[in-house]
Structures are given as C-alpha cells and as structure tokens.
C-alpha cells in the first residue's frame, strides 16, 4: 500500500500524504494551491464553471478528460495530470482556444469562461478536425453561460481550429508527461488519512484489495465518478469517514464485447461505454449521450447509476428492457441476478453490507428485436429525466412475440410495465393493441408530481412514448424526434 496520493499539477509533481478524503479538487485548487482561475458556480457539477482537465494514461497515450472539479475528490487524481485554465497560456501567449474566445467576443461577465476554455481544450484533444455544431453542443452541454447565448462561443470553437490548437505544448510534452506519470504511479493500492487520522481514503488498484477493504469497512462510501456522492458532500454536507475510490481498480474498468454480450465493468465511465453500447443499441447510446454532460459522463459510471438505485437514473430502465444481468461481489463470493431484481423499494436495493457491483452483462439484441428508448426532460441536454421509457419488442409477422418494457421516473424504483407487456405479447402490433397497452400502463404505475413533472404529464407521456415507439416501428416516413440521430432535419428547408 502506498500512503500518498501522487499526481501532476500541470508539470509539477504533488505528493499528498494527508488529505481530507472528501476534499474536492476545486477546494484544493483554490484553497491549497491558490489557483483561483477555476470558479465555483453551482457546487453540484451542473454549471461547468469549475471545469478542469484530467489527463490519464491509457494505452500508452494520455486521455484528456474534462471533469467538474467541484464534485471530484482530490484522491481521484492519483496517477493523473491535472490541468486548469492557468496552465494553458504558455510563454505569455494565450492558447488557441483562449485566443479564439477573445477574438470572437465570446466572454461577457467571464465567470463561466475558464470552464468553457477547459471544455474546448479537451475537445481539441478528442477531435482532430473542426467538429460539427451538434458535436460542439455536446462538448459544451455541461457549461452554462448566462450572458452570451452561446453563439459566439460556438463560433470560437470553430475558429480555434484555424489556429492549430492541437500543436501545442501539451501535445509536444506528452511523452515526457507520460514518463513522469509512470514514475509517480507504482500501481499500488493507495491509502491516505486526513490530518487527524480520523477519516480515510482508499484507492484500491485491484478487485481483491477492493473486496477486502469493503469487507473490512462495510460502512465506507464507495465512489467512482462521485457525480452523486460529490453532492452528498457539497450539498448535504455529509462527511463519510471512509471513502473507497473505484476508479483505479483495474478489473472494474474494463468494457469488453463478447459474442453475445457487452461486459461492462462497474468502474467504466459513461463516456467509455457510450460508443460500444451505441453500436448495438443506438437508442441506448442516444440516451447516454444525454445523461449529464461530457464532464459528468467522463466521471460517472453505469455501475454507479445502477448501484445507487435512484428511481430517476437513466441506465436502469435501459438495462432492464435489454434484459441485462448484474454481477455482485462480497469478499470472495460472487452472485448474479437479473438487473430488475436488484431494485427492491425506494432507496433499497438487493445488496448486502460489504457487497459491491462488479459489472453488468448487457446481452446483444436478438435479430428482429426492436429496441427504443426515450428520455424526457424539460431541457434536452444535461437534465434529469422526468421519465424515461425503454422498449424491447420482438415482432414477427406483425405479432408481438416478446416485450420487455421498463420506465424510470414513474415509480419509486425503475420498473417493468408488466400489464402493458401482457397487453402486447401475442397480440398484433397495431394501433388497437398499442392503445390497449397504453391504458394498461395505468395498472403498472401511479407516478408522483414534483418539480420535474406532474403525475398527469408523466402518465400521459409514458403512454405517448409507446405510441411513438409504434409509429417509429411501423411508419418510416414520419419524423418523430427533435434531437439525436434520426431527428427531424430542416437543414435545407430553412
């Protein structure tokens, strides 16, 4: 075990042998390093003013990822390079992304600007050529600007590419950075206490260490992306005594495609999972694209989204409809269960003390299976769903052979629509059947009213989404979507 957290702040090594396990990267930067360029806007990973870039070694290169410093814990930086807005300008000249923002009049009050700078910097690492506007919208979905209306920022994002943004000191120094990081990270499990020795941070490097630690500290808070746990700390002001970070557990950070399934480790981020899943389930990919923002998806995991059991998590209904299997481990013992059986009641999952989610098996869709998923929220990007419907239907010869339908946001847990499924199975896939299934949804769910939507809207839309699914699978001429692949495109018409 290693008793310190090691990372690079730009080029400078940092060795922290005492650290508050829930000190955020943002507080660390502003209070410890005196780097105040990174701003706190919301303290919950939504506004992006605190966006920093974390570069981590992956397959012999650096993977640059924008993340929200306000909800990332310092310990998660172990083995990485941390870059902030202060690090981009070199030798007195602004980085191309910075210069483009200035030239395009893309800052007004300027408070959100450092976050935009970092998101755009990360964009230049991921996109060789000027991205299209939809991609830029995605890149910037996690950065709120209240002044500009975004138009000049998008102009700057494009103009950056006229200034050779990729040929910079970071690209040229990548080999050296990799070398420095290799020297810092010995692959050991990390264990660090706070100054009083009262609170602890662990970053196990392998699943056995994790299993052992979690058996020893079953009260510990497990965290991967801390996109939820971060808020327990910043908003609810909880102070967990022991935090175990999953991001360094090698076995949990794998995503593999087998002949008939995708095996998703519990520590795999949405960003890493998205492309693989989208290949097999385009609609699942589209929903994942709309979960949080780039910053959130770079940190958050499907495993965490399941483990946390929220009734409004977007992954569970997708996985339930697709018939995924959940794998749990406790100590040396392992068990697997159909994922819907994991959700018992509000805030209660089928998980014992010391037991953790190891991974998920997502079976590949069978031929003739129609998979559709729709996320409904007030705003398309970076919004928590009012409801989400996922539909896996096998239709043969105009008959519904099998149906797995799951909704989020309609009950205390993500749940299958048993009555609606029953109304469909064996029936002809036509309007009458769909209407019957729509009515049956009233047997399956009694949603609540809250700030995201009223009960009435939730139920109405739950039904209408089934209809959308019907139209999409039977009428290929009608546009049914406003965003994502297959959306209405008026490009030429307007």
């Amino acid at each position, binding site marked *: 075990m290693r008793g310190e957290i090691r990372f690079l702040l730009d080029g400078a090594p940092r060795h922290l042998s005492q650290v508050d396990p829930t000190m955020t990267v943002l507080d660390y930067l502003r209070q410890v390093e005196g780097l105040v360029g990174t701003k706190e806007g919301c303290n919950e990973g939504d506004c992006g003013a605190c966006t920093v870039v974390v570069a981590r070694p992956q397959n012999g290169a650096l993977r640059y990822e924008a993340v929200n410093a306000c909800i990332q814990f310092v310990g998660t930086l172990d083995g990485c390079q941390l870059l902030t807005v202060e690090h981009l300008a070199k030798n007195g000249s602004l980085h191309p992304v910075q210069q483009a923002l200035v030239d395009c*009049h893309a*800052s*007004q009050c*300027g408070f959100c600007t*450092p976050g935009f700078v970092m998101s755009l910097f990360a964009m230049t690492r991921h996109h060789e050529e000027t991205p299209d506007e939809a991609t830029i919208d995605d890149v910037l979905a996690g950065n709120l600007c*209240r002044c500009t*209306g975004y138009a000049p920022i998008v102009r700057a994002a494009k103009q950056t590419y006229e200034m050779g943004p990729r040929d910079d000191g970071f690209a040229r120094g990548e080999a050296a950075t990799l070398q420095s990081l290799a020297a810092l990270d010995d692959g050991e499990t990390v264990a660090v206490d706070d100054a009083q020795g009262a609170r602890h941070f662990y970053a196990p490097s392998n699943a056995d260490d994790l299993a052992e630690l979690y058996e020893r500290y079953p009260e510990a808070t497990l965290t991967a992306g801390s996109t939820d746990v971060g808020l327990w700390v910043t*908003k609810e002001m909880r102070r967990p005594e022991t935090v175990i970070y999953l991001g360094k557990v090698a076995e949990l950070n794998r995503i593999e495609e087998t002949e008939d399934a995708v095996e998703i480790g519990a520590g795999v981020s949405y960003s890493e999972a998205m492309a693989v899943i989208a290949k097999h389930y385009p609609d699942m990919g589209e929903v994942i694209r709309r979960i949080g923002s780039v910053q959130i998806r770079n940190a958050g995991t499907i495993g965490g989204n399941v483990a946390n059991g929220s009734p409004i998590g977007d992954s569970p209904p997708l996985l339930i409809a697709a018939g995924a299997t959940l794998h749990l481990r406790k100590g040396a013992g392992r068990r697997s269960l159909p994922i819907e059986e994991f959700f018992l009641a509000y805030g209660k999952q089928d998980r014992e003390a010391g037991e953790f989610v190891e991974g998920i098996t997502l079976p590949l869709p069978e031929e003739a299976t129609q998979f559709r998923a729709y996320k409904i929220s007030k705003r398309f990007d970076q919004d928590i769903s009012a409801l989400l419907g996922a539909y896996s239907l096998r239709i043969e010869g105009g008959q519904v052979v099998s149906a797995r339908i799951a909704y989020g946001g309609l009950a205390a847990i993500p749940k299958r629509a048993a009555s609606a499924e029953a109304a469909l199975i064996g029936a002809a896939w036509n309007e009458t059947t769909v209407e019957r299934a729509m009515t049956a949804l009233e047997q399956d769910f009694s949603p609540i009213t809250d700030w995201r939507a*009223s009960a009435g809207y939730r139920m109405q839309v739950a039904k209408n989404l089934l209809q959308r699914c019907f139209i999409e699978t039977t009428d290929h001429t009608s546009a*049914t979507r406003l965003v994502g692949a297959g959306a209405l495109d008026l490009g030429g018409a307007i």
Partner: protein
Amino acid sequence: MSEAMITGGVHRPQRHDSGHKHVSGTAAYIDDLPEPQGLLHVYLGISSVAHARIRDMNLDAVRAAEGVVLVLTAEDIPGVNDVSPTHRHDEPILAEELVEYAGQAIFAVAAKTRDQARRAAQLAEIDYEPLEPVLDFAEARQRGVMVTDPMTLSRGDAAKALAEAPRRIKGQMEIGGQDHFYLEGQIALSIPGEDDEVTVISSTQHPTEIQGMVAGALNVPANAVTTEVRRMGGAFGGKETQGNLFAVVTALVAKKTGRAAKIRPDRDDDMIITGKRHDFLVDYEAGFDEEGRIQAVEMTYAGRCGWSSDLSGPVTDRALFHADNCYYLPNAHLVSEPLKTNTVSNTAFRGFGGPQGMVGGERLIEEIAFATGKDPLEIRKLNLYGAGGRDVTPYHQRVEDNIAPEIIEKLEASSDYWARRAAIRDFNETSRVIKRGLALTPVKFGISFTLTAYNQAGALVHIYRDGSVHLNHGGTEMGQGLYTKVAQVVAQEFQVDIERVRITATTTGKVPNTSATAASSGSDINGMAALSACRAIKARLTDFARDKWEVPEDQIEFLPGEVRVGNQKIAFAEFIEAAYQARVSLSSTGFYKTPKIHWDRAAGRGRPFYYFAYGASVSEVAVDTLTGEYRVERVDILHDVGDSLNPAIDLGQIEGGFVQGMGWLTTEELWWDKEGRLRTHAPSTYKIPACGDRPRVFNVDILQGHRNREETIYRSKAVGEPPLMLAISVLHAISDAIASLADHRLCPRLDAPATPERVLATIERLRREAAATKGRAA
C-alpha cells in the same frame, strides 16, 4: 486629413476590456481576491418555513460549533434593521419575530472557515408558530394585501369603447418568473477601517445603495463607508438590491470583530434567499373592429411580489408601460396589483416588468388574430403606432421615434416570412407527430429610469503627466461591456489609443451618489458623464494651448495620439506634460442628467422615457405533439441600437438577451411546493438554456442608418434589456405550431413558461376544444 486612427474609438467592435483575463483565469472576482489575515467567513441561518412567528430560538449549538467566532441576530444591529431599497421599512436584515418566506435570514454566524460557518448555521433550533402562508395569486388576491401602491394608466374611455366595440375577447394569462442565475453568486467582503470606517467590496450593481444600507445598519454616516466593485460575474438585475443583505451582514461582523468578513452563500441558498423576476397573472379584455383594429383595452397586471416591496412598485409600473408594446391603444385602462405573498421578494430582472407587460399585450394581438381569422402578423401591422394621432401611449407620451413599421417590413422580407408560413402549413398538413410554427413579434422598450432622480451619473477622469488616462465612473461592469464602452468614449474624446485609458473599479469614494447600473442606462448616462469630464479637461487644455502658443481656438485639434496647435503637432504625452508644467488641472469630474423626462405617477401622465429602443424577431420552432418537447429551428432578428457605440458588444447583448428571454419563456420554471418552499433552486432542477438550445439558425442583424434622434452618447441607444423581449416570438411560434392542431381556428392560449409539460397540456386542451366546437358545428 490624418490617416492615423486611434485604437478603440467609438462605433468600433472593440473587444471587452477583460476578455484576455476572462480566458486565462486572471480576471479577479471577489472570491478570488487574496484573503485578508484573520478573515472570518459568514453564513446565514434561514427560515425553513414560509410564514411563522418565531416562538423561541436556541443558538447555543451554533455558538459552540467548531470555529465559530460570532453569532448575530436582529438585536445585535446597532442601526436600522432594514434593507428596503425604497425605505418602506419592510425588509429586515435579520428577522425579528416574524418570518415571511422560506429562506428569510434569521441570524448570521461568523467562523474561521466557510465550511465551519456553513455547518454551524444548520445547528440552530428554531421553534416556529406556524401562520397561514399566502402563496398563490388566488390567495393573495383574496387577502388583498399589496406591498406598494398600485398604479393606473388610463387614456380615453376604455369601458365605453369596449361596450361599443363590434368584437370582444376576454381572457387570462399566467406568466412565470425567472431566476437570474448569474454564474457568480452573491458575495461581499468587508474590511474594517479606523474609527467607524469600513470598506465593502460587493458584487453589486448599486454601490451607493450598498453604502447607504451599510451606513444605516451600522448607524454611521455614509462617508464612513466605501463600496467597491471591479466586476460582477453576471447580475441581470439580481444584484441591484439583492446584494444588500449580504454586504450588510459582513459589515456588521467586520465592525463587531475588527476582522475582515466575507460571505458567499452556496448556489442553492442563493437561489432560495434572493428575489427573482416577478410572475404575473394578467386579466385582459379587448374590443376591436371586424378588421382586427383595437378600439379598447382593459388589463390588470397582478404581480406576485413576495414578502416585501423591494422594487415591486417600479417593476409592476413598467409592466403597464409596456402593455402597449408597439401598438396604439386608443382607449386603455391598465391597472397594476402588486400583491404580497409569503414567497421570496421578487426584484429587478432585465426588462424590469416590461417583458411581462409586453407578453400580456402580445397575447391580445394573438387572440384578435384568431378571432378574425388573420395571420397574427397582419394584426400586428394593423395596430402599430403611426401617424394621424395614432401616436400617443396609455401614459400620454407621444411616440416620436417610431421605427417599428420599418423594422418589421425589413425583417418580414429578409426572413422570408410568408413563403415560410406557406411551407410550414404544407409540412403540418402531412406531418403526424411534429408540427412547426412561426411568429414575428416586435419590441418597443422605453429607455430611462421611471424614477426620474436615477437618471443622473457622474464620472472622474485624470490624465497623468505621462499622458496615461485614469477613468472612473458610477456604472458597474457585469459583463455587459460598459467599462469598455465608456473607455471608448474617453479614447475618442482625447484621441488616444484605448490601451492608454486605465479602467478602474467602481467605488463610492471616487464618484458619489451613483445610480444603479440598471434600466439599460449604463452607457447612456455614464458615457455622457465621462464625456463631460473629458470635455472639461479638454477645455482647459485648449485654453492653455491658445495662451501658450498664441493660436486661435479653432487651430487646436485633438488628433490621433497628438494635438495640433496651429501648424505644429505635439505628441499627446508631451502636450500633457507641458500643460502640467503650466499648472493646468488635469483631472475633472463629469456629470450628466437625462433631459426632457418627467413623470407624474398619480396622474399617470408625462414623459417617463427619453426615447424608445426597437427590434423585431421571427422564430420558427418544431413541436413534438406526443411529448410537448420543442426545438427552436431558426431565429431572425433585426434590432435597433441607434448608431452603435460598439457593434460587437451590442451583438453580444442581442444574442445573449434573446437566449435568456427564450429560457424565461420556455424551460425555466420556478416550482414551489405546497408549503411554499422553492424546489428548483440549483441548475440541476432549474433549467436555463444550454448550448444546444440556442436556435439552430440564428441570423442577428443590427439595424443600420438609424442614429438616435435624441442627443444620446454618440447617438447610440441602450441595449441591455430590449433584446430579451425579442424572445417573445418563440412563445408565439410554439403557440402557432399548437394552433395547427385545430386548423388555426382556436387561440391556444399558451401560457409561460412553455415547458414541454405545459405545451402538451395546451395541445390536449386545444384538441378537446376543437372536438367540442366541431361537435357544436355539426
């Protein structure tokens, strides 16, 4: 003629003075300043209930908490326990016996770290005796308590004209509020000085008011308090009065302890504590002829003001001032109802009631269009202010600068309105799920504070011996580019490069008795004040040159970087040094007051506005009729800024204002629970537009060739607020898409915010109404 030109003169797209600092993280906001030694961090303890009497309050645990140095309650305030900006004494800094909204400050705790203060604030035990809260319009109307005097605007005989009108419509519209969501939250830092002095660094649009509130609470004269602000991370009206509470508590702690004190509420607390844009309930009735020409209008604008008056009087007044928008109302009777509720005290927000007034007025137009079966654009054009006596507003000011007809005509052509109207009808005929909509709405916005005294400004300009210029004025920088624009004026006047003009933080110590940077007035009044300071110095310099070089005054000219005196040209710095040697004062204040304006509120008559700013927009949307979701596909804007001081900055105000207005009318929904607690108090629950929400096609043009007919600063026009109202076309475009479901026979009466849920509910209601009317027809 010299070929040379200065950098950063007026009418040029000079970049924001802090642009390079914004992008490199070196622009310092208050929380970024080095912390003074011994700094204390303050946090507020707030009410968890909407209306109650405080029976008992036990703060022992707060006092005993780790790091706590001081706990303040109302009785610890040496001066006046009030931060009411209109001095109605209805807004205690810290609650005494009564709490009137969930979020009201009850006590303040100061600790060594912010985390300690924040944790300690949660430890209070407060025993509330619950009182019935008044939360919504119905309850508030029933209770009938107003936070301030209502206003009536009346012209002609509306009741009689309504009764005699051939056609009539009547209805009601809900218009939601809006959180400012400035990215930098409220923050203040007070540093105690000698004797009774204190310096307050505050994120405020109104340094003089902060100074006054702090002086009042501390019971010291205003000259003991200096307020400073270099820049805000956004404000939008949310820092016109809402900073008072935060600034005052830090000053109280600083003077009690002799240590500097800072407060920075967490985002959620900021949103729970501070006021927002007023929501309104508008009752309307209009009479018109068969053509759709308005003959009479009666409207009541009820504003949900919250627990205290704050600025609700002038906000609800401004709603009435904009009910007419660009339209002539021959007989009008407009009444405001500034209702008291047990919710957060609503406040200034870009447009200041004007947007709500205009949204109500535009609903009338839409209703008339559906009643007459015409395209709303035809009804709009039919009712525009015009010649032949059709130029008097309901407040009896003549519209002398009307360019709305020309703007509409140009935009109608450039946006290809009618061809697209036809194409959209065709699309909607065949599209099963998605329906498209189109709308053009104009804007006429009155420029000037309706409180006449606020229409004044001061500036202070120094030239140092090396020819560098120091600029200070009473306006504040919140991102709108005011500092840049005023520096352009100074550069232009002295004909020096803008880089030679040092922009300095606003401080009450340099320019006193400032007005709030609000009402879009910033560059109009501060630009003019700076101009007057420059001209005073130039007059002295001219006198000096005339006497020294014995040339007539008309032979003295400020050229780029130099001064021509007769046949010789002297570099500016050299010229200034010569003036210094001759003992010429190189420093001057400047002052400006807006001419021509006057307003008699009781009579509802006068000229409250110096001039009007105009604009128009066309929005096209696509609506998903299964879910109520929508997208803004294309927006075309033509907007009037007179002869722009800075077209780049003005373009930014137009684009940004539009998107902010669009957010207000679409996804931004404030949601209170039954107990009166705001539940959308963070960006996770309160949804302002994201990058992907901006219009897919966004054509924004500044109207050319129309300098301000009034003598404003370089004939420019104010631009801060008016563009926000361009977004009304988005609401109407969504409504238009919905209307297609009933063959454009019925007015959808789409209220705001048009969240997907509200859009779907409107769709369902319209379908039911359409079925019912069809049934009747059959």
